[in-house]
């Protein structure tokens, strides 16, 4: 079994699976259960400034998006930061860290954008012995109305300023947690980097309304007939999160900045994908909230098995391996030509590929006598929609055309060379190929 020990910012944990700052990490009781179940670390649910804690709503805090058989695909929440007194949390953090020295304990923080507030809380966190802090610049609901959370994360200058305050007043790693509720994730990441952040973590939740009650027309979760946008997470957000992770990983200005990947990690495979896109570890919340802490056992065993199969002995062996393959559209090889191919042995004749192609795409699939579905190479642009809608895995595949053969759609011979949009004759800004 491959060793999953992970070093992230000099913080060692027995595996790369941390629980994200969220309800599962709000209390000593939960965190102890999490560590007993095998989680490598936790980011303690966000602490606020000294004084009366925030209050939560007294009705539903979560809304859901379901797939088949009520499989939870997306979850949103309108819960705020911890609603327990600061002192209680700090005492519990100290006790837990002392009892689990091999696990990572990070403390999430969110206080008003004033240096004095940060200066007040940072020494108290340091006293707990926690391994580091995570700055919550991400929560899109509630706290953002008070000038915190996503309200900070949406202004790069604030991110840089607060990060700098923290680096100046705290001597352990500072992770900046980013909100996805922006237009270009690179700007807040660069700001964090410029402020001296040791790492960024992303994504925080996405502003969302999960559903509307069609009887009383209240958004869900509904509090006395009204709803407020919540923060969306779970498997549904993974593609959005992975793109943002990759954007930061390949941005020349932030390249090498450690990343903690968050957003819909549910299985070992999700973790491996995030990490291949540059995340040094991952944080999980919804999967634990859906299935309980024991879910980590599948994640660790699965990642370990996959690493064994691939011959990786450390997570470092594959972290970032996919980053060089993430590029801009303009650099994609336009000389690469593929065609859909339907395996007639595997085809169950549902005709979904035909409906999709005929109705919504390129009329490149024939429906022949006896419900035989075949690809018309003269029309197929290899869009992949048929593959995506086919209920049988690997029944339809995209087969690369060999150089030297003629694409019947264009009549052109497939070239062995690489050519992209930057040199394409249809591009008004193209430069002549040398």
């Amino acid at each position: 079994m491959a060793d999953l020990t992970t070093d992230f910012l000099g913080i060692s944990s027995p595996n790369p699976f941390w629980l994200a700052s969220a309800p599962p990490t709000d209390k000593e009781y939960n965190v102890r259960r999490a560590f007993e179940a095998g989680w490598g670390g936790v980011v303690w649910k966000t602490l606020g400034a000294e004084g009366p804690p925030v209050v939560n709503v007294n009705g539903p805090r979560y809304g859901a998006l379901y797939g088949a058989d009520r499989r939870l695909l997306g979850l949103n929440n309108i819960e705020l930061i911890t609603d327990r007194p600061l002192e209680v949390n700090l005492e519990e953090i100290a006790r837990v860290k002392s009892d689990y020295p091999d696990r990572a304990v990070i403390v999430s923080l969110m206080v008003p954008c004033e240096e004095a507030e940060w200066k007040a809380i940072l020494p108290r966190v340091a006293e707990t012995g926690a391994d580091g802090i995570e700055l919550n610049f991400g929560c899109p609901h509630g706290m953002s109305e008070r000038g915190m959370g996503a309200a900070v994360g949406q202004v790069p200058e604030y991110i840089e300023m607060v990060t700098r305050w923290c680096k100046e007043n705290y001597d352990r790693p500072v992770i900046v947690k980013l909100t996805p509720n922006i237009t270009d994730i690179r700007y807040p990441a660069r700001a964090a980097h410029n402020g001296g952040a040791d790492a960024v973590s992303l994504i925080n939740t996405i502003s969302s309304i999960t559903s509307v009650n069609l009887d009383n027309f209240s958004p869900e979760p509904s509090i006395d007939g009204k709803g407020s946008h919540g923060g969306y997470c779970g498997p549904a957000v993974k593609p959005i999160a992975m793109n943002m992770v990759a954007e930061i990983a390949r941005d020349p200005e932030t390249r090498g900045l450690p990343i903690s990947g968050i957003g819909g990690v549910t299985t070992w495979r999700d973790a491996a994908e995030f990490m291949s896109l540059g995340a040094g570890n991952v944080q999980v919340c919804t999967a634990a909230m859906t299935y309980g802490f024991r879910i980590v056992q599948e994640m660790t065993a699965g990642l370990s098995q996959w690493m064994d199969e691939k011959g990786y002995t450390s997570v470092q062996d594959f972290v970032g391996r996919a980053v060089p393959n993430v590029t801009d559209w303009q650099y994609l090889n336009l000389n690469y030509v593929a065609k859909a191919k339907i395996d007639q042995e595997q085809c169950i004749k549902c005709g979904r590929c035909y409906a999709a192609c005929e109705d919504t795409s390129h009329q490149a699939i024939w429906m022949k006598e006896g419900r035989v579905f075949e690809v018309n190479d003269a029309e197929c642009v290899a869009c992949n929609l048929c593959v995506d809608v086919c209920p049988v895995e690997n029944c339809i595949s995209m087969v690369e055309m060999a150089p030297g053969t003629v694409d019947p759609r264009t009549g052109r011979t497939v070239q062995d060379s690489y050519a992209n949009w930057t040199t394409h004759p249809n591009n008004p800004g193209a430069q002549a190929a040398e």
Partner: protein
Amino acid sequence: MAPGQMASGLAAGRLTAAEIDANFDDLHPAYAPHEAAVAADRCYFCYDAPCTTACPTDIDIPLFIRQIQTGQPEAAARTIFDQNILGGICARVCPTETLCEEACVRETAEGKPVEIGRLQRYATDTVMSAGVHPYSRAPETGKSVAVVGAGPAGLACAHRLAMLGHEVVIYESRPKAGGLNEFGIAAYKATGGFAQSEVDWLLQIGGITIETGRALGGELTLDGLKADHDAVFLSIGLGGVNALRVPDENMPGVRNAVDFIAELRQAENLSALAVGRNVVVIGGGMTAVDAAVQSKLLGAENVTIAYRRGRDAMPASRYEQDLAASKGVRLMFNVMPVGLTGTEALTAVDLEYTQVVDGRVTGTGETVTLPADQLFKAIGQTLDGAPGALALEGGKIAVSDGGRTSIDGVWAGGDCAAGGDDLTVTAVAEGRDAAMDIHKALVG
């Protein structure tokens, strides 16, 4: 053990009342809403769906399943009823394993089709149990149509005609409407008096009168019906039963399977219904299976289906064969009855092994004797009592498209009409299509 279990001859109460109740419970229990949602989610919404092609009534199956999946079983039921007003009973009795579910691509993929029949029942039950009838009649046309026989074909025809604004009188020979739904299928396929409540529900459309105890023949003649109505639809079923052509076949203990099934369906108390200890059913269709299984469920100790050809030729589906086997019925193939033993009543039946030579079944000379105090004949039904003037085809009323018979103004459908495969769902389709043809003929 109930006192009657080991009694020889015909005896009632072979099992306790509780055992019999449990035995005759719903074969396929209704889905709970979540089960239905999960089952519906398995549908791939196929293009030009094979299940719909396989359905004799052309129900848009992917659409109704999607409507269940989106939380609207009422809309799903409407999709079903638009094509098949008897979608409720069809959901229960259709041999889906040889129709829609056999064609389902998930049968191809996994050997586990989407459970279309149970989903259809979920949708139709939702509407019918609420007592809602989702159709209303068009303005009255002033035309009147006689329907002879209140079975599936007659009811489907009558409903469609009534909906189109015609006045319909159904003449039914039995004391109750419903036809084979009421008298002719296994009780565990239509529990809780479903067939009658379905008739009541269907009649809510209005414009339909049912006159029971009115059989064709005697004072009810085709000429008379033609004179009194603008059109006539014959859906008289198959009233005759094929004979064994074995000596002494009227011996006590020998009975038509359809009569046994009808008596069972009408019995107030199944514990009072007599059945043999050793039962032999001659035949290989659904009627044979229904008679055999129900004999077993009543407590018969040994029940054998004796079919004269091999398993592959058996008209009852493999699913029905397995159902019978699972209830403890023995299936014998390639045997035919050649002799009955008994003085006052049947005690044994002699079967001769058969082989098929040039497509014809012939005896091999080898025989086997089975103890039998009850023998059911289930070797097919025949047309009985059809007006002599009608042209026949293969022993049934000849029809062209739309169910037109050789006599102008007279249509026919269901089991009495040539073509089709003697299924409830086929009868519904023929009744519906004849109604549309009659409508066209009456109002142009």
